[in-house]
C-alpha cells in the first residue's frame, strides 16, 4: 500500500493517473459516440432498432444514397461557400480589428472586451434577433437601408434563395469576429515591441513591418485560428436553425444541418450518420493541414 502511494507521490504515478482520467473521459464521451456513429452509417437504422447495436448491415448503401441525392452537390457547394467565405471574412475582419485595437487609444481594452458580449448570448437567440432585424417587411435592416437610399424596395434577406446563404454567412461572420479578434490580439501582443523598433530603424515602413514582422510571426497563430474557426463554422447549427432552417428549398442548407434533418426530422438515422462521417473526414483533413504546416515551421 505504502509503495503504491510512493509511486503516485514521487514517481510517474501521478502523471499516469492524469493521463488515465482524460483517456477514460475521451473514450466515454468522444470515442464511444464516434464509433457508434460510424457503425450506424453502415447499418439500416430505424426507430424500432435504434436501441440495440445489433442492426442489419447495409455496407455502403447509406453513402450511395447520400451521393445520389439530388441535393447532395448543392449542399456540398453551400457548405464550401459557407465555411470558406466565413473563414476569410472572419480572419480579415478579426485581424483588422485586432490591429486597430493595438493602437492604444483611450478605452481600447474596455471596448475590446465589449466585443465578447455577443458570446454570452445563446446562438439560437442571436439567430432569432437577427431574423427579426432582417425580416423583409418589418425588419430594421431594410428600414435603415431604405432611409439611407441604398435600396428602394424591401430585400428578402432570408427568403430570397440567392441571398439566404450569404445572409447566414454574414451573421456567422459577425458572430465569429470576436473570437478571431481576441486570439489575434493575444498573438500580436506577444510580439516584442523592440522588433518593430529595430525594423523601423532598418528602414521598414508600416506596410513592410506588417509583411516582414507581423505576418511571419503570426503565421502559426493564424493557421491554428483558421483551422479552429473553420471547424467551429462547420459545427454552426443554431444560427441556421433560427434563421432559415436550410431554406428556401435547400438554398441555404449546409452539411451539418442536413445531417440533423436526415437523422431527427425524417428519421433516416443511417443517412444522417453517413453525412456526419463524411464531414468528419473533412475536419481530419483540415486538422492535418494545420499540423503539417506548424510542424514544418518548427523544423525550419
Amino acid at each position: 500500500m505504502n509503495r503504491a502511494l510512493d509511486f503516485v507521490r514521487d514517481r510517474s504515478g501521478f502523471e499516469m493517473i492524469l493521463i488515465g482520467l482524460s483517456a477514460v473521459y475521451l473514450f466515454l464521451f468522444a470515442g464511444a459516440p464516434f464509433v457508434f456513429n460510424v457503425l450506424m452509417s453502415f447499418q439500416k437504422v430505424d426507430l424500432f432498432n435504434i436501441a440495440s447495436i445489433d442492426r442489419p448491415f447495409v455496407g455502403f448503401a447509406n453513402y450511395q444514397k447520400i451521393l445520389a441525392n439530388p441535393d447532395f452537390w448543392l449542399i456540398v457547394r453551400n457548405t464550401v461557400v459557407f465555411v470558406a467565405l466565413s473563414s476569410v471574412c472572419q480572419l480579415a475582419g478579426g485581424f483588422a480589428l485586432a490591429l486597430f485595437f493595438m493602437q492604444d487609444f483611450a478605452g481600447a481594452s474596455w471596448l475590446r472586451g465589449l466585443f465578447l458580449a455577443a458570446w454570452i448570448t445563446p446562438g439560437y437567440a442571436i439567430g432569432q434577433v437577427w431574423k427579426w432585424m432582417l425580416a423583409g417587411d418589418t425588419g430594421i435592416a431594410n428600414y435603415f437601408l431604405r432611409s439611407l437610399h441604398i435600396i428602394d424596395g424591401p430585400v428578402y434577406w432570408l427568403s430570397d434563395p440567392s441571398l439566404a446563404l450569404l445572409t447566414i454567412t454574414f451573421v456567422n461572420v459577425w458572430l465569429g469576429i470576436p473570437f478571431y479578434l481576441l486570439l489575434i490580439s493575444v498573438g500580436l501582443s506577444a510580439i516584442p515591441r523592440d522588433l518593430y523598433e529595430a525594423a523601423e530603424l532598418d528602414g521598414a515602413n508600416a506596410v513592410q513591418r506588417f509583411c516582414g514582422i507581423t505576418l511571419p510571426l503570426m503565421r502559426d497563430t493564424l493557421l491554428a485560428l483558421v483551422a479552429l474557426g473553420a471547424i467551429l463554422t462547420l459545427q454552426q447549427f443554431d444560427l441556421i436553425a433560427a434563421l432559415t432552417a436550410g431554406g428556401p428549398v435547400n438554398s441555404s442548407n449546409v452539411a451539418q444541418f442536413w445531417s440533423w434533418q436526415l437523422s431527427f426530422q425524417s428519421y433516416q438515422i443511417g443517412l444522417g450518420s453517413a453525412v456526419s462521417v463524411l464531414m468528419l473526414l473533412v475536419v481530419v483533413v483540415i486538422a492535418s493541414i494545420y499540423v503539417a504546416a506548424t510542424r514544418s515551421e518548427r523544423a525550419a
Partner: protein
Amino acid sequence: MNQVELSAVEKHYGEYHALRNIDLSIPEGAFVALIGPSGCGKSTLLRSIAGLEQISSGTISIAGERVNDVPPRRRDVAMVFQSYALYPHMDVERNMTYSLRLRRRSADLIAAAVREAAATLNLSGLLGRYPRELSGGQRQRVAMGRAIVRHPKVFLFDEPLSNLDAELRVKMRGEVRALHERLGATSIYVTHDQIEAMTMADHIVVLKAGRIEQQGPPLALYDRPANRFVAGFIGSPSINFIEGAVTADGGHVTWEGLERPLSLGRRLSAAQRVQIGLRPEHLAVATDGTMAMVVDTIERTGSQTIILGRCGGQPMTVIDHGRPVLARGDNLRLAVAPDHIHLFDPDSGAAV
C-alpha cells in the same frame, strides 16, 4: 563638423520630466558614452536621437540636418538594443541584410556586405543559424553585424554588453572599440558601467535625473569631477566622502577626529564647511603619513589589497598595490597629495 547636435532637448512623459535641457555636441567619428544610474534617462536620450521617442521641445540634428520630424527610418542611424531584438524568423544572414533588402540593394552588394561583416565579427560559420540557436555572445555580434552592414551615419548602443558574462564583456569591450576605430563612425554608447565608459569612450556624458551633470574626456571627469555626484559615480571602489571644514588659515582641511589637518596647497575662504573626497587609490600607506587609520577588513584580489577601516573616526577605503601584512585592529598611517583632495560644497554638491 558635429555629426549629432542636441540643443535644449526636453522630454516629458505626461507629468514625468525625463530629460531636462540637454545640450550635446558630438563630433564626427567620436565615441561618446552616456552613463548614469538606472532610470536617469539614458535610454530615453538615445531613443530620442533614434527617433523612437518624440521629444517635447528643443532640436536634434544629425549631419547638419534638423531631424525632429524625420521618422526613424529616414534618420540613417543604427541601434544595437539591450535585448538585441533579432528577428526570430530570420537566420543570421537575413537578420543582417534586412535593411539592405528593404533598400533594394543589388544581390552582389548584399553578399559582399554580409561577407565583410561576418568576417569582421567572426560570424562566418553561423550565417544559416536562427537567433534561438545562438549563444548570448553570438547574438550580440549578430546585432552588431546588423548595424554595421548599413554603414549608418551614427551607431547607437543601448547597454549592448549587459547580458554577457564578465569575461566576455571585457573581450567585447575591446572588440567594440576596435570596430569603432576601423569604421570611424560616430558612436553613442549607453552604459551604467563606469569602467566600460572610461575604457571605451573619448567623451563621457554623466546623466542624473534627466540632467547632464558633467561631460568631457574620461580622465578629465576622473581628475576634476564637477560635483559630488560625478566624483562618486566615477572610480571603483568609489571615492571616500567625509564631512569636514577648511581650517582658519584657509590652507588646510580637517574633520573631527583627525589629528593633523591636511594641506591643500591652495587658499580657500576660511572655516567654510566642505565635503572632502579622497579616492582609495590616492591614499598611500606610509610610515610618515599624517592620518592614522584603524583597520577593520582586508580584501585581497592578488594584484591589490583593499583595506577598509576608520580614519579619524570616519569610514575609509584604501587601495594598496603591495601585499602588506595586516590584521584587524592594526594601526596604519596614510598620506595623500594635496592635488588629490577633492572638495565639494556640502549643500549644492558643486566642486569647490
